[in-house]
Structures are given as C-alpha cells and as structure tokens.
C-alpha cells in the first residue's frame, strides 16, 4: 500500500505526467518504425543515426550555432535518406554502412569537442557524450512545449503509418516487385527516412540513443516470436512497447532506478516471455 501511495503522490506532479506521456508516445512511434526497420535489416539505424546526430551536434557547438537543431536535423535526415534509398545497389552493404557512419560520427564529434573545449558551455565533454548515449534531459525536466511537440510528431508518424500502411508493407516485403507495379518506392523510402530521422533526433534528446535502439528492436522481435502476419506483428509490437515503457517508467519512479535502462530491462523481460510463448506454440 505504501508503494501505491507513493505512486499516486508522484503521479499528481505535472512533470511526472509529462514524462509518462512523452515516454509512451516515443515508445509507440519507434515500435511502429521498428517493424519496417528490423525487416529491412536496418535494426541498427537508430544507433547509427543518433551518433550521426551527436556528431552534427558537436559541430554545431564548435561552430557556435545558436539553434543547434538547424544543423542536426538536416544532417540526420540526409544520412537517413542515403542509408535507406541506396539499398541493395551499393558496394558497402547496409549494416556495414551504418556501423561505419555510427562509429565515425561519434569519434569525429568527440574529437572536435576535445579540440575546441572552450566552446563547450557545460565545460564537461565526457558528460555531454554520456548524456547522448543515455539521454540528457532526464525525462523529468520536460516543458509543456516539449510535450506538445512530441504529441504533434506522434500524430504525424501514426498518420503516415495508417495512410501508407499497404505501401509500406509492399516496399518492406519486396521492393523490386513494388517498384515494378508502379509504387514510387524511392519517394516512400525518403518519407520513411525523414520520419525516422526526426523521431530519432527528438527521442535522442529525451531518452538517449541506447534506449532508441532498444525501443526499435525489442518490441518487434518479441511480436515476431508469436505472431505471423504483418498486421498482427505491428499491432502487437506497439502494445508491447507501450506497456513496457509505462511499466519501466513507473518502476523507475518508485525505486529511483535510471529510466532508460529500466525501460530496456522491461522490454527484455517481455522478449523472454514472448519467446517462451512462441516456443510453446511451436
């Protein structure tokens, strides 16, 4: 009962409510994108793009941009489009390309921050790097503007998903066939890449790049253990993701554990359960 009282007490704070709303929405969006990404063998794009975003941020800091987003967002969108649209026809395969970009951007960003430490306002380079990996603004410092931005974005992502659902299925399952029947594969890939990049840049600030990757991969993999049609996998992965995000956040509030890591732990437990169900079903 004591725990329950504590929970009610915390939930009465607007900041906690904001955190829950934003966390759930980000979990929902990334699980929707996750199904397509995992099936296109691009599971690590979340990781890669958030490191690219970090690299871009480092340059924005050093070049003294007043609004860092003006550099971060275009760079990340561009890289996402490059990764998604070149597809199978490149000399460097998708996973290798992502790994190279990811590590390269992280290293380059860290390098310029260390070469020009006087430009880093917090004066703590290592701390800045750590916060991109694990989320900077702890979820509890969100303003109502952040929350509305996040709601708007989620509505957009879900809208794109519902409206283009059948096309996304077709280009995920078989890009060549879709193109042959006149689906504008390239246009949809650019749309998808833009959505992914925007979600990742925003989510990275809130929850960190480690959590983003987990949110993209785990719910999809869990759903795929049990469900066998595309639609069911998507619906199930969205549900898993939302439930795990909520559970993780509540646990982290009650026991003051780190939010991101707790949510990932919840996703891992869910994966274990679904793998077991899948095995039992045969």
């Amino acid at each position: 009962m004591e725990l329950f009282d504590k929970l009610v007490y915390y939930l009465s704070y607007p900041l906690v409510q904001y955190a829950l709303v934003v966390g759930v929405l980000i979990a929902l969006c990334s699980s929707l994108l996750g199904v397509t990404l995992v099936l296109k063998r691009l599971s690590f794009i979340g990781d890669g793009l958030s490191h690219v975003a970090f690299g871009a941020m480092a340059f924005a800091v050093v070049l003294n941009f007043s609004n860092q987003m003006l550099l971060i967002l275009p760079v990340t969108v561009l890289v996402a489009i490059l990764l998604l649209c070149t597809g199978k026809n490149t000399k460097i395969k998708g996973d290798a390309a992502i790994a190279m970009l990811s590590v390269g951007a992280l290293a380059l960003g860290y390098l310029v921050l260390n070469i020009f430490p006087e430009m880093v306002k917090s004066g703590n380079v290592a701390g800045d790097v750590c916060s991109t990996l694990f989320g900077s603004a702890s979820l509890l410092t969100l303003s109502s503007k952040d929350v509305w931005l996040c709601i708007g974005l989620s509505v957009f992502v879900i809208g794109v998903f519902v409206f283009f659902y059948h096309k996304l299925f077709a280009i995920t399952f078989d890009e060549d066939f879709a193109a042959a029947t006149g689906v504008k594969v390239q246009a949809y890939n650019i749309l998808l890449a833009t959505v992914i990049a925007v979600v990742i840049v925003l989510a990275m600030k809130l929850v960190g790049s480690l959590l983003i990757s987990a949110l993209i991969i785990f719910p999809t993999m869990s759903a795929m253990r049990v469900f066998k049609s595309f639609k069911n996998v998507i619906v199930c992965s969205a549900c898993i993701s939302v439930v795990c995000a909520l559970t993780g956040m509540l646990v982290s509030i009650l026991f003051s554990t780190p939010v991101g890591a707790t949510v990932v732990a919840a996703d891992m437990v869910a994966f274990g359960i679904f793998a077991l169900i899948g095995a039992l079903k045969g």
Partner: protein
Amino acid sequence: MAQLTCENVILGYEKTAVTGCINLSLNKGDYLCIIGDNGSGKSTLMKGILGLRKPMEGKITFGDDLKQNEIGYMPQQTIVQKDFPASVEEIVISGCLSRSGLRPFFTKQDKMLADEMLAKMEILDLKKRSYRELSGGQQQRVLLARALCATQKMLLLDEPVAGLDPETTEEFYELVKRLNREEQVTILMVSHDLHAVSKYASHVLNLVKDPVFFVTKEEYLKLNQKGEEVSDGTV
C-alpha cells in the same frame, strides 16, 4: 504489333556491361524461356524489362496495349522474404497496389480479385496461413498469385522452380502452361531446364555471350541437335 520489343539492348551495372546485345520481339500469348549460366544477366534483363534498370544501350518498347507497370513479376527468392511475418492474404493482395494510387485501403474488387487468383492457384485454403510456414512449392504459388493480381497480360518468372522437387516443379509448369494457353498470358521464364524448354516454350533466348540469340523453340532444338552431332563427331 508486338507486345514487347528489345532492340540492340545492352544491360549492365555502372559502366560494366553484363549482357550481350539483345534483340527480341514477343507477341501476346508467346512463351519465352531465357537460358544462360549463372551471372549471364538473366535477372538483370528482367529488371531492365520492368524498368527497374535503364538499358545502357538500345531500346525496350511495349505495344499491344501493354504498359510497363502492367507486367507481373515473380522475383528470384531472397533470404529476407523467407522469414518475413506475413499472411498469404497480405502478400497476394499487395499485387493490387498498382491500381490503388494514393488510396490508403483496398477495395472490395481488390479483395475479390485476390480470392480469385488464390483459387486459380489452388491455394484458397492457405489464405490465412503464414507465408514463412509454407512449403517451397506453396510459396511459389503465392508469389504467382500476387503477380497475377498485378496483371493478366504478361508474367516474368525468375527461376520459379529453383529448389522445388521434380513433382512440384512439374505441377508448377502445368499451372503456368494453363495460364499461357487458356488465358493468353505472355510468359517470360528464366530456367535452366532444357526439358521445360522443349515441352512448354515457344521461343528461346540464350544469354550466353558469343552470340546472344533469340529463336523459336523449333530452331533452338535443331541447333542443339546439331551441336550434339558435331561434338559426337569430334570424340
């Protein structure tokens, strides 16, 4: 007028040509077998005809009311498809996308067409099943049903019987033959199988270089016989 004409077509990647110079012309109801070693550019030619790759040289033209996006395509199976979570129904109806434009859902007609094609492929009972749990032969029928949802004028089949056992292979060939004979669907099929050529094809395109040639089946069988006689003579 011919449905499909290739004039001096050369296909390749970046600056390297993969195929020799291809000339061919097909009419409605023809059945073309494309033969050639691995890497001779059979799949590349399919992509050229579908408009997924521009020819480096030459011209591919369509006639007889056929537009480029009215070709049904059955790709060579990729590893990605094999463990994809999708029901048979979802895959087959995705063939209808060419007609749906920006509309976000499928119409009743689309659904009826998908059912009709499933029935034609004799897999209506598999409709709700998961694609990745089907046998190789059943998977090929699903992909053929999808191609038929996209068009009923011309089908491109890229090694459709690879990995099938002899009995399933024969069933699949019969299915394609029925489409070809009864509904005048033009067939372009990649196959290594000389038996299939002599039994089903009306034309043969040989992509092995020096020279690439396009002939009717009768001419091809004659050429083949001669080749055998010559090699017999030298032994």
